[in-house]
């Protein structure tokens, strides 16, 4: 199945990826060939199969709702590009 230029632009927006005009054709081409590969699965009859939830049929473990981590904000913020007063700084969101 061939994707269109506008499909690619829509997916890129959903994925929050900027795709420039000169890159779109390559994405159309390569993503279409990937979708062709995976679309073959549609030919298999799975009407009586339950989708896999976990490779080993294990249940998700629960733990008591107790505090186990101390606040290490300064350590974590060491990796941020812009912080101030203990907050992460980003471009203006609200006009």
């Amino acid at each position, binding site marked *: 199945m061939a*994707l269109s230029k506008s*499909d*690619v632009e829509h*997916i*890129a927006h*959903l*994925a*929050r*990826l*900027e*795709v420039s005009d000169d890159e779109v054709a390559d*994405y159309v081409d*390569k*993503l279409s*060939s*990937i*979708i*062709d*590969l*995976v*679309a*073959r*699965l*549609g030919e*298999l009859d*799975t009407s009586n*199969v*339950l*989708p*896999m*939830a*976990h*490779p*080993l049929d*294990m249940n*998700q*473990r629960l*733990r008591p709702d107790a505090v186990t981590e101390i606040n*290490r904000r300064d*350590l*974590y*913020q*060491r*990796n*941020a*590009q*812009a912080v101030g007063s203990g907050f*992460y700084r*980003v*471009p*203006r*969101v609200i006009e």
Partner: protein
Amino acid sequence: MQRPTIIEIAAALRDGSVTSRELTEAALARIDAGDGILNAFITVTGESALAAADAADAAIAAGKGGPLTGVPIAHKDIFCTRDILTTCGSKMLGNFRSPYDATVVGNLAAAGVVVIGKTNMDEFAMGSSNETSFFGPVANPWDTSRSPGGSSGGSAAAVAAGFVAAATGTDTGGSIRQPAALTGITGFKPTYGRVSRYGMIAFASSLDQAGVLTLTAEDAALLMQAMAGFDPRDSTSADRPVPEYAATLDASLQGKRIGIPAEFFDDGLEAGSEACVREAITVFEALGATTEAVSLPHIDASVPTYYIVAPAECSSNLSRFDGVRFGHRHEGSRDLEEMYKLTRKEGFGAEVKRRIMTGTYVLSAGYYDAYYLQAQKVRQLIADDFRRCFESVDIIAGPTTPTPAFRLGEKVDDPVQMYLNDIYTIGVNLAGLPGISVPCGFSDDLPVGLQLIGPAFGEQAVLNFAHRYQQQTNWHRMAPAFAAE
């Protein structure tokens, strides 16, 4: 001694014929001399490695420590390390300093290993050739015009070249077994959940599993003993006891049953590789094992299934890279959305972007049932096929890859051709099973890998078969000329 194993290194450290400092200095010298060609390392940690080596030597002199104390190893750069940069092969994490160590890193540090650096890898482990790394491709020590495979290509090349006796790796669709096969070494992927994923940067969370690249199955067992085990910090960690892996390595194979899936010997398998794998199976027969034909009728669907499930999980896992809390950020954006989009455009390479977009597409409104839900159903069929085989056999044997190492640049522009290279390994991840690749010969002077697959938590059987094979053969002792230079 050229390319000593961990077992040999540990013995030499115990009898005092070598110190950890000497081993570490020698490893650093080999990397210094040879890694300009291979590019196996993203970060080399000279000073901290020497300090750790001195501490290990003091422990050994005091009669303390275990079999891994003082042994130099490398970590794939996907494992978070508090004191070393963790890049995951990406520009996005080019300056990332993890606030904590991955459980694998912590467990091996507690066992006394000396970490000599972080190895190169496909960006975010997305690739089968190590060509998607932001830090450049890795060369195969057997032929430097060829790929060592991926995504743990740096770890594989570093072990094959004799820089280190072992390196950690991760395997989401074959990323330990395939590079091990293409570089003529041993690569072990445990059962999903056996080794903690905490601090291992997530690609596809239902498939990712940590393991090791070593020279022998015996060394893999030794490392596994230190790495494996329940970790409350990983919600999918298996809460069951870790057996003594070394205890069953020598078990007899008399009467054991090996399943040979016809689907693994298809038209796509190169003739020289097939001859090596079939010859390897006769070695097991000579040890008293029997073979029988088994069938994995849905294995053809494993590549398409994987390329829905893995990109879907990756698109969601990699949404965290938005330039706010860590990693690369585009400067000078007018608004938040533009910052996200330009940060991700600049920070991710082409293959990562393709997978994020594939995953976003298959999860998007109107397509979820046709792609993702259908893939999870087919995944169940693939897992059921393996389960049925293990009702009648102890192990499944076949090739690891369809061909020996391909040339750098050969498949890089054709993602679908690259994906098909993982045809024999991907089903194992979809079913969550343990698997190993061991060297079993050469085709046109390039190493060929034999893959052994076990039932869930059948690590002991896989390591037992691999070790018995290596006791009978010398393929794992064959080193590339590069290792001697």
